[in-house]
């Protein structure tokens, strides 16, 4: 329970810092780079290495590569739907998560399983 709380606080702080950096930068397309900052990874890897060791964290990073490919597809789909179709943001970003899950787990099944 304590570990989950530490992960929650550290993760929240790191994500907020990168999000804040994104808010301060212009133009918007450049600021958007920080929407894909490795915030969750930075918060998680240090804790993981201290508890599980480097090899374990290295395996996580290999899967993270697959997750990043899924992130690229997710962000591309969201961008196209918002710019071309001008659909509402919250439903688009929320429902498009299905793309991330499908791509991430699909690629994991095809490549790493």
């Amino acid at each position, binding site marked *: 329970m304590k570990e989950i709380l530490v992960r929650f606080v550290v993760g929240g702080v790191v994500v907020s810092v990168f999000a804040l950096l994104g808010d301060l930068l212009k133009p918007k397309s450049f600021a958007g780079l920080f929407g894909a900052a490795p915030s969750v990874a930075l918060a998680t890897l240090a804790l993981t290495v201290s508890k599980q060791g480097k090899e374990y964290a290295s395996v996580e990073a290999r899967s993270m590569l697959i997750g990043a490919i899924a992130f690229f597809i997710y962000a591309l789909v969201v961008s196209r739907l918002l*710019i071309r179709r001008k659909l509402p943001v919250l439903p688009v970003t929320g429902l498009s998560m299905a793309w991330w899950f499908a791509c991430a787990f699909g690629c994991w099944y095809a490549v790493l399983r």
Partner: protein
Amino acid sequence: MIRFVFGGTITALAGIVAERYGPEIGGLFLAFPAILPAAATLIEKHEKETKDRAGLDGTMRGRVAAGVDAAGAAMGSIGLMAFALIVWQELPNSSLSLVLVGATLAWLAASVMVWELRETLCRRIRARFHAASSHGLHAAPRRGSSIHRRFDE
């Protein structure tokens, strides 16, 4: 606050999933789009409020602005791949802090390079379009590049 809660939740969830299902599944969530949905929603809200104060409807502008931000995130995810690759390859044989700093710098460098490449390509397309227009030729406007330019100023 929303970003803190969402980011913290995803980080905690990544740890729980890794513990339950192993590092191969848990590692996928290290690249979960934790910031993007909240950031896009805030951008839409901010743009809409700016237009509303001027007595105009900012709904469409807000959505397009959020879309431009998401396009930036797509470019940033290429940097995220570089980050993951470096950590995967170098962590077993190197110091943690060195690897994380190096990987973060690689993320930044790769993301900025992709962004610069896109900007250069868009500038060239715009220049060709303007040259074609000034010669009286009818060239189809590149909707993507002009929309990005409006939010790039």
